[in-house]
């Protein structure tokens, strides 16, 4: 049972990781591509870490929870990256599929 669960989590995590990169490769403008990795860093890595926690908790004595920290740090840092990337793209005036924002929000 545990093995099925583990396998599922691992596959799900890998799949989300893959989809994130797929988005990165496939989507047609920078801003939409920016959404891809968010998957990978949240659900993708999240599932894998849960799998890891389960795996190590059941394998040796004592539970393993430190995997949570990876997610925690990612939750703090990944949005900063994404935000700054978007900001940089806006600053450089990269073309977007969406109608570009008016200047209003800036000043």
């Amino acid at each position, binding site marked *: 049972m545990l093995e099925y669960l583990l396998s599922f989590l691992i596959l799900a995590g890998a799949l989300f990781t893959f989809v994130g990169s797929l988005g990165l490769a496939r989507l047609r403008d920078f801003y939409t591509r920016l959404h891809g990795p968010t998957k990978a860093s949240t659900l993708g890595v999240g599932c894998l870490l849960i799998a890891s926690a389960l795996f190590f908790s059941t394998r040796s004595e004592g539970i393993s929870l*430190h995997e949570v920290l990876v997610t925690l740090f990612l939750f703090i840092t990944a949005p900063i990256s994404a935000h700054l990337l978007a900001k940089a793209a806006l600053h450089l005036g990269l073309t977007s599929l969406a109608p570009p924002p008016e200047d209003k929000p800036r*000043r």
Partner: protein
Amino acid sequence: MRHRLLPHPLLTLVLVGIWLLLNNTFAPGHVVLGLILGWAIPMFTVRFWPERVSINRPLLLLRFIAVVLWDIVVANLAVAWLIVGRPQSLRPAFLAVPLVLKSDLAIGLLANTICLTPGTVSAQLSEDRRFLLVHALDAADGDAVIAEIKRRYEQPLKEVFESC
């Protein structure tokens, strides 16, 4: 006095927790060590983080976190489907979300939350801090998305961090 000896009690707790997680143990030795560090590190970093954080409604915060996690899962599936399925039919949009939040931390948390949930990325905070520019991957109805953001995320954050 309390401020000087224990500048960020909440941070102290968080640090102790993280310490125990890091060491993957709840042994008493590590609890003691964690407490020492949880006390000492904020003493050092207080200069970097002077403003006090007060959480007015802890339970609401937990609920908020749960909501966000749930949203992450759901949105992930949705977005994954978008990416795999029909990337040509995406309707991306830039949305200017008007803000009621004032504090750096709250705005930061909101922006973070928006980034974490797939499908939206907070792109820019206006200079006057009254609008948060958000890029949405697929927003047929931009105003609906804005309303959703304000309801699901901004409102609870406002209550937790800025209610008084």
